[in-house]
């Protein structure tokens, strides 16, 4: 940054400090040799990583969260991509309204949706909490699938598919050999965003917990409430490391900026 813009420059530095520094403090405290969450950390050890990785509630919640995120992402793509195709390529009335409907889960507060599903489906209908979570997460991911794949569909020339049809390909074959490969970056981005959004979710999942199936972020929040030791810092550092790996993969394959065509709504 050039120093010739002192005001903008200092505001920018302040912004980066607020965004990044707390994360660095989490990493630093996770390696502490001491028994409490304090700064500066006392000594160096990996004991809290060992503790986190052998703490049953964290590990089973980690497995649950990965499971949920994976299934919800696949479901959202499997349901969202056909819907996107119909919205962009099909001759249907009221396209705007239908697209709006698919994007609507973005505007209602997640906590409100979580409360609705908890009260109406879990308590009202006796639906198990895994099914309720899966339903809620899939609904929440639909807007990503529709918007991100929609953006790459808008870039794909329909004439290509028509040419394939003209050359004698069946509609399905034309779709799978021409259109789908063109959509691949969009689908990858949507899948990645969906997976992380589901894995990290708190407000929607908050009320949809049970003793048998708990998600990791909510389990960590509960743990912080009852104990102030650095084990959560170690778990947080592990999640950070995993997220960095995913971000690097994303950057190498489709590029960061493209993926966030989807978040920047």
């Amino acid at each position, binding site marked *: 940054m050039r120093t010739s813009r002192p005001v903008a420059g200092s505001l920018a530095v302040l912004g980066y400090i*607020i965004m990044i520094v707390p*994360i660095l403090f989490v990493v630093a405290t996770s390696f502490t040799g001491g028994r409490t969450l304090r700064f500066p950390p006392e000594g160096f050890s990996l004991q809290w990583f060992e503790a986190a990785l052998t703490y049953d509630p964290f590990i089973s919640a980690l497995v649950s969260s990965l499971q949920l995120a994976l299934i919800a992402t696949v479901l959202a793509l499997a349901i969202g991509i056909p819907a996107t195709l119909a919205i962009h390529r099909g001759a*249907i009335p009221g396209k705007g309204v239908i697209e709006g409907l698919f994007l609507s889960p973005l505007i209602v507060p997640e906590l409100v949706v979580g409360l609705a599903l908890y009260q109406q489906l879990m308590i009202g209908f006796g639906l198990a909490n895994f099914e309720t979570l899966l339903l809620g997460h899939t609904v929440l991911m639909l807007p990503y699938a529709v918007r991100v794949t929609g953006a790459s569909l808008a870039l794909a020339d329909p004439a290509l598919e028509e040419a394939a049809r003209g050359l004698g390909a069946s509609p399905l074959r034309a779709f799978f050999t021409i259109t789908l490969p063109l959509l691949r970056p969009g689908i990858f981005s949507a899948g990645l965003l969906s997976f992380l959004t589901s894995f990290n979710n708190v407000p929607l999942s908050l009320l949809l917990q049970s003793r048998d199936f708990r998600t990791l972020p909510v389990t960590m929040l509960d743990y912080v409430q009852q104990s102030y030791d650095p084990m959560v810092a170690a778990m947080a550092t592990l999640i950070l490391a995993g997220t960095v790996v995913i971000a690097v993969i994303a950057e190498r394959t489709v590029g960061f900026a493209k993926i966030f065509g989807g978040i920047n709504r």
Partner: protein
Amino acid sequence: MRTRTPALLLLPGLALLLIGFLIPSVVMLFAPPGVTAADIFGRLGAMLSDPYDLRIIGRTVGLGLIVTGICVALGFPIAYLLARSTSRWAGVLLALAIFPLLLSNVVRTFGWLVVLGSNGAIGQLLTGLGLVDAAPQLLYTELAIVLGLTQLFLPLAIISCYSAVAQVDAGLDDAARGLGASRGRTFWTIVIPLSLPGIVVAATLVFAGAVTAYTTPYLLGGSSQRMLSTQLFSYASVTIDWAGASATALIMTVLVFLVSGLSSLVARKGATS
């Protein structure tokens, strides 16, 4: 595509939206178990005249506005500098601003416990330097919530502003400068007005996120600094007060709809003028 195919492709999605979102939400908001719509609106009226509830609503809206102001004030300069920079570091800094969006809110918010806690970095620094005798209470304050929410939503503000600034032709800056405008004048009369749509989007996203966030007020505000979201959770799972929960959910939803509607109104006006 044949005429019936699009409808078939839409069907699973529409069914999912109805069962997993629209019907439960509407029933919860207006007819939860054992409660009538009249009860909920009665409760809403009571909340809007009760000093304790009003303080929670006021805190939620007030902190939401403060965080929105800070995120735009910090996010726009960052977006502007990054969009105009020719340095190869600009790409790295942009990625650094986007990355937190991928990272769990619990992880990001947890950092403030280490920074602001009684044994945290700021407290230790102040007592270590002998500036204060005992570490000041920073955690469980409105300041902590503001810092936490700013951290969460600043990346969103940066991205929205960035795509707007990047579309403003840098040649316009140069032209204004060439005609004798100062750098400040160029910024306020050229750059800001032309990127206003992006700023409106940024403000809307940040405000809507800030008034509905749960993790931050829960971890950093505690029970002493309740906001609508933490209050909603307590109605739903501690006191099992469905009327209170629905009324609170209505306030949150209306708040978000209101700012979204307002911002699309502003956007439409900007597009026609």
